[in-house]
C-alpha cells in the first residue's frame, strides 16, 4: 500500500558534523575554564585576596606550569614526571578495573537477588544502603588484615586488596540500578510474556534484563569513575606507593616547593577517570545502539 512509503522515518543525523561541533564545544569549555582560573589568579594576586583563600603562586599555579611539569624531571636523575605518572596510572587502572569488574558483578547479583523477592528486599536493602555510610578508610584495615595476611590459606597481593576496596564503592550504584531496572518492566509486556506461557527465566532474560540495561549502564558510568576514586584512596591504607594514590601523597608532601607536580598528578588522575567513563560509554553505545533514546 502506498501509505507505507510515506511513513518511512527520517534518517538520523549522525556523522562528522556532530563530532566536529562537539570537539569545538569541548575546546570552548576548556578555554573558558582556563580563562576563569588564570583570571581569578591574576585578580587575586593583584588585589592580594585572602578570601576564600590566599591567592598566590603556590595555591594557584599557572595552568601551563602544570602541563609543563609533566615534561620535567622532579628529581634530576629520575624520569620525566609524565612517565612516572603514566606508570602509576597504569597500576591504579589495573586495581580499579578489577575493582570495577568485581563490584559490577557483585552489584548486579545483589540487585537481581533483591529484585527476585520482596522479602529479601525488605530485609536486606537497608543494609546495602547502610554499607555506603561506612567510609572506605574504615573498612580498609579489615580488608588488609583479612585478605593480605600471608599466613592465611586464602590471601591476595596488596593491589588485589585495593581492588576489593574499590569494588566496595562500585557495587552500590549497580545494585540499586539493577534492582530498579529489573522492576521497571511494563506490566503489559509481562502479560504478553505470560500469554506465551513463558517461564520466569525467559521473562528475566528476554524482557527484564533488556529493560534493565539502560539503568545498568547509567550506574556503570558512575561506578567506573568511583572505582578510580576507590583505588586511589585504597592505596594509602594498603601502603602501595606505585599508584596514583602514592604519587598524590608523595607530591602533597612537597606541595609548597612544587605545587605544579600535585596538580599535574590530579590532571592525570582525572584523565584516567574520564578514560574509564568513556570506555563504559563506548560499551553502552555498542550494546544499546539499537535504542538510541535509551542512551544518556
Amino acid at each position: 500500500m502506498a501509505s507505507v512509503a510515506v511513513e518511512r522515518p527520517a534518517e538520523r543525523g549522525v556523522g562528522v558534523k556532530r563530532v566536529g561541533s562537539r570537539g569545538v564545544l569541548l575546546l570552548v569549555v576548556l578555554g573558558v575554564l582556563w580563562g576563569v582560573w588564570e583570571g581569578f589568579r591574576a585578580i587575586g594576586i593583584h588585589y592580594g585576596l585572602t578570601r576564600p583563600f590566599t591567592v598566590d603562586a603556590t595555591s594557584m599555579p599557572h595552568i601551563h606550569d602544570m602541563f609543563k611539569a609533566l615534561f620535567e624531571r622532579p628529581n634530576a636523575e629520575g624520569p620525566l614526571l609524565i612517565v612516572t605518572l603514566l606508570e602509576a596510572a597504569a597500576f591504579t587502572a589495573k586495581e580499579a578495573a578489577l575493582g570495577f569488574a568485581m563490584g559490577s558483578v557483585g552489584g548486579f547479583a545483589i540487585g537481581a537477588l533483591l529484585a527476585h523477592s520482596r522479602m529479601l528486599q525488605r530485609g536486606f536493602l537497608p543494609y546495602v544502603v547502610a554499607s555506603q555510610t561506612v567510609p572506605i578508610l574504615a573498612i580498609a584495615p579489615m580488608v588488609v588484615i583479612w585478605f593480605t595476611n600471608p599466613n592465611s590459606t586464602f590471601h591476595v597481593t596488596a593491589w588485589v586488596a585495593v581492588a576489593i576496596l574499590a569494588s566496595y564503592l562500585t557495587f552500590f550504584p549497580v545494585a540499586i540500578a539493577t534492582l530498579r531496572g529489573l522492576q521497571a518492566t511494563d506490566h503489559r509486556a509481562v502479560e504478553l510474556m505470560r500469554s506465551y506461557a513463558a517461564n520466569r527465566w525467559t521473562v528475566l532474560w528476554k524482557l527484564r534484563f533488556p529493560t534493565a540495561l539502560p539503568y545498568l549502564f547509567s550506574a556503570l558510568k558512575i561506578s567506573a569513575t568511583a572505582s578510580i576514586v576507590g583505588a586511589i584512596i585504597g592505596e594509602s591504607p594498603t601502603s602501595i606507593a606505585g599508584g596514583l594514590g602514592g604519587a598524590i601523597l608523595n607530591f602533597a608532601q612537597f606541595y609548597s616547593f612544587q605545587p605544579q607536580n600535585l596538580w599535574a598528578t590530579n590532571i592525570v588522575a582525572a584523565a584516567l577517570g574520564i578514560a574509564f567513563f568513556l570506555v563504559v560509554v563506548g560499551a553502552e553505545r555498542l550494546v544499546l545502539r539499537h535504542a538510541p533514546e535509551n542512551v544518556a
Partner: protein
Amino acid sequence: MSVVEIQGVSKEFKGGTVALQDIDLQIEQGEFVSLIGPSGCGKSTLLRVIGDLIEPSRGAVTVNGKSARQARQDHDYGIVFQDAVLYNWRTVAKNVALPLELAGWSRERRQARVEEMLDLVELRGFADHHPWQLSGGMQQRVSIARALSFDPALLLMDEPFGALDEMTRERMNAELLRIWEASKSTVVFVTHSIAEAVFLSTRIVVMSVRPGRISKVIPVDLAQPRGTATREEPRFFELATEVREALHLGGHVEVPA
C-alpha cells in the same frame, strides 16, 4: 465445538469491584465478536479471563475445548493490546519472531514465517527497523503480526486501534478484516467505537456497567467482504442505531462516538 465457551463467569476484584457478573457466551470458529460497552464495564477483564491472564472468581472458561490455562500453555491465542507493547531493543522482525522463539521454532522457520507475516500486514521492507522508527499505526500492525505469527486459533484484541486517529483507524479496520479473512482465525475484539464494532463484527456483544453484564447480543448481517461502501449502507446505520440504543438501555449516560 466452540472456540470459546464462557459459562457463568463472574469476577470480583479484591476491594469488592464486581467487574463481571454471570457472563455466558459462546464463540464459534471463524466468528468476529466485538465486546462494546462503557468504560469500566469489564471488557478488558473478560478478555483477560479468556486468555487466562486473570482467573474468574466463579464460572468456567474453555478455549478450543480445553481449560483456559491449558489453551494458554498450548499457545492457542494471540493477544493485541491498545498499545503495541513492542520491545524497543528488538527489530520489527525480531518482535514478530518473539513468540516463535519462545515456542522453540528453528531460525529458518522463524525467518520464513516472519516474512510471511510482514507481507500480511504490509510491512515488508521494515523488518530491520526498530519500533521507534514506525508510526503508531505501523507499530500496531507489527503487534498484530506478532499475535498471528504462530497461527493461533484465537485472536484477542483489546481496543487495538483506540489510540489511532480516525483515518488510520478506518484503514486499520479494513486491513484487519482482510487479515481475518486470510488467516481464518476467530477474533474477540474490544472496542468502544460503535462504527468500528458494526463494520468489523459478525456479532456484537453489548455490555453494561456495574456490575459488568451482557445486556444484548446483536448479530451483524452485513455482507462479506466489507469495504468503504459498507459504511454507507442503510443497514450499517440501522445496526449502529441498534447498538447505540442497547448501550443506552444499559443505563450509562455517556454515549461513545
